[in-house]
């Protein structure tokens, strides 16, 4: 077993992890940056093709406190306000860092171009034409990480356990997928930046490897998770015809810009039936649009693949071409001619507002354990405003790296015994001859049941059913078939991913069951109103665990953390 030592260990090398690494290294610390895929190519950032919100006021007068007001309003009373304030206050500096590092933000007349996005009262959202924001941000950070001294990058290395002793982080155990061997890492500070759990749902718009490992690692290490019931579903993700080479949520900006019509399977407008006002601008909020689409499908008025139509045929071709730019040719290559045909769209799992509970130093209740990016819970409350996700990666990445660097001074005390349980588990896994299904097949079952019972619309009854079904799947863990071979064995990776997915699914379902109201992204058909009694945050932990097999996820309520800084 290889053993490594570092000051700061960063788990996950998307935008947040890379920024955390840069930031910790800048403080003089040695950094080890792990990714289960390739550094800078997986996770959510690379798929985030839209915009980054920051009050740099290049386009029109703006202030971070206005950005904060918009963020808090969208969060429906549940935002961890100091975290939201950190996000908005520090966003402009991060955009300008990136600009200095060579990110080619769209510009006009010398200034960085900014546009409005739903939920923002100012033109505040920076982007890179056309639908290239995430890949460009990732490329800039990859370059910075690659040229920084003190950062060691490891690809295809997945953390499978964060080791804690006496309430303090000691390091981690990781699996090297390319050899199948374990490595131990002594580290006094660990940043979890492998957020996002979209993979627990059948329909998802993010990278396929986002099984919620950050949340699982944090829980198992003794940290708490917050707001886990708040999964953001994006109403009009691409459904059909088959589209490759594009982000499935690409339609949104064009719909706002051009006024794409949402039509049911009979080519009728329908948003107005559910209280939305379309008035040619198609401004129905995300939750209402999702609700209306799913209700039409349920009533047998969906499109052939189970969604609705998005139609641009009423827009003149020259306007289409000017708005879509080269994207229109990429669509044509997919056989999609917008002047002649509508496309089919449907809601999809997109982002997670919930996450690891941290304080204003991005630290969990476990000393030395930090979170960054989408892994952080609380800044978006019940609903994230569009454009804040990459902002979160950059700002929380920078802060988590900074505070982790400070914490790393404490030194560590590593003992090889910390890795013993993980080593024994992998050994057992290798000896499996395989009577049950493969982990990947069980992942599909979990995705189906989560979509059906814990998706955009929930009920107590459905959630109870989901909880029972998750328990049944968990019981299959010891019997799963693992194929042979140590080198690049995806069954082994799928197994750990499934463990993470099951824990996350359980956390979402337990939290959704307790929240008997509808608020933001959490919509309960059996409790359709928002209730003042639930203007509280919910935390889940494994505090009740008494043995290795006890399903002991427990939840508690906490008052919302408010902040003094609220407005300009």
């Amino acid at each position, binding site marked *: 077993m290889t053993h490594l030592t570092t000051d700061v260990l960063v788990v996950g090398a998307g935008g947040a992890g890379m920024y955390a690494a840069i930031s910790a290294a800048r403080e003089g610390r040695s950094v080890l940056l792990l990714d289960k895929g*390739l550094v800078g190519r997986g996770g959510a950032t690379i798929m985030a093709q839209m915009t980054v919100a920051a009050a740099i006021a290049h386009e029109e007068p703006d202030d971070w406190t206005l950005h904060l007001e918009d963020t808090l309003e969208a969060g429906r009373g549940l935002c961890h306000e100091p975290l939201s304030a950190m996000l908005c206050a520090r966003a402009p500096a991060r955009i300008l860092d990136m600009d200095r590092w060579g990110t080619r933000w769209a510009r006009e007349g010398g200034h960085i171009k900014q546009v409005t996005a739903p939920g923002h009262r100012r033109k505040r959202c920076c982007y890179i034409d056309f639908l290239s924001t995430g890949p460009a941000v990732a490329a800039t950070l990859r370059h910075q990480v690659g040229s920084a001294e003190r950062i060691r990058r490891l690809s295809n290395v997945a953390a499978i356990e964060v080791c804690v002793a006496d309430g303090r982080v000691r390091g981690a155990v990781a699996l090297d997928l390319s050899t199948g061997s374990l490595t131990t890492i002594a580290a006094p500070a660990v940043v979890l930046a492998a957020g996002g759990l979209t993979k627990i749902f059948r329909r998802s718009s993010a*990278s396929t490897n986002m099984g919620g490992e950050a949340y699982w690692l944090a829980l198992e290490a003794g940290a708490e998770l917050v707001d886990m019931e708040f999964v953001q579903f994006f109403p009009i993700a691409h459904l059909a015809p*088959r589209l*490759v080479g594009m*982000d*499935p949520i690409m339609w949104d900006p064009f719909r706002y810009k051009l006024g794409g019509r949402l039509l049911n399977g009979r080519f009728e407008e329908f948003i107005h039936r559910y209280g939305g006002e379309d008035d040619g601008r198609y401004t129905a909020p995300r939750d209402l649009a999702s609700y209306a689409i799913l209700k039409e499908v349920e009533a047998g008025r969906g499109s052939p693949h189970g969604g609705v139509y998005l139609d641009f045929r009423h827009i003149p071709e020259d306007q289409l071409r000017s708005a879509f730019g080269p994207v229109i040719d990429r669509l044509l290559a997919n056989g999609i001619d917008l002047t002649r045909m509508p496309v089919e769209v449907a809601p999809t799992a997109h982002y997670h507002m919930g996450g690891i509970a941290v304080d204003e130093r991005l630290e969990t209740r476990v000393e030395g354990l930090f979170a960054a990016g989408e892994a952080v819970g609380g800044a978006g409350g019940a609903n994230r405003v569009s454009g804040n996700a990459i902002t979160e990666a950059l700002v929380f990445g920078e802060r988590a790296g900074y505070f982790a660097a400070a914490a790393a001074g404490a030194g560590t005390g590593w003992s090889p015994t910390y890795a013993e349980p993980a080593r024994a588990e992998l050994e057992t896994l290798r000896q499996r001859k395989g009577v049950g299904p493969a*982990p990947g097949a069980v992942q599909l079952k979990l995705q189906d049941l989560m979509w059906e019972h814990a998706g955009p619309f929930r009920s107590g009854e459905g959630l109870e059913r989901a909880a029972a079904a998750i328990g049944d799947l968990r019981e299959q863990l010891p019997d799963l078939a693992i194929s042979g071979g140590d*080198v690049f064995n*995806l069954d082994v990776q799928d197994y750990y991913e499934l463990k993470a997915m099951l824990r996350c699914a359980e956390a979402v379902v337990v939290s959704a069951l307790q929240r008997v109201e509808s608020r933001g992204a959490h919509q309960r058909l059996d409790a359709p109103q928002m209730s003042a009694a639930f203007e509280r945050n919910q935390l889940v932990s494994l505090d009740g665990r008494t043995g290795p097999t006890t399903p002991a996820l427990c939840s508690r309520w906490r008052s919302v953390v408010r902040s003094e800084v609220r407005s300009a």
Partner: protein
Amino acid sequence: MSDSVVRASVTTSLSVWRGSTQEEGHVEIYEVPFEEGMSVLDALRWIRTHVDPSLAIRYSCINANACHTCMALVDGVVEYTCTARLTSAGASVAPLPKRAVVRDLVTDTVPADEKLNFDA
């Protein structure tokens, strides 16, 4: 893989190279459900979840052509499997020719300084 692909009754065949070095390997042929517009990666993932989970492939963003990690030789041409379209005539998929094979379609595309044993 979309639900509709699973429902399709038409199938096509995919020849997939399996092995652990460029020199030694064999081709396995899989019948996969076919739907117009599907990608080679769709078919490979279907094989993993429905027929043989031991097949090794590399991918992350899936079909968005953003992560650029899923390259392989499709009918003799270097392609991203996520954007390479499968046709009803099927396809043959092999590892990148100029890279060391790690396992099956996974080749050594990891930068040398991102490997665990780099300075070991």
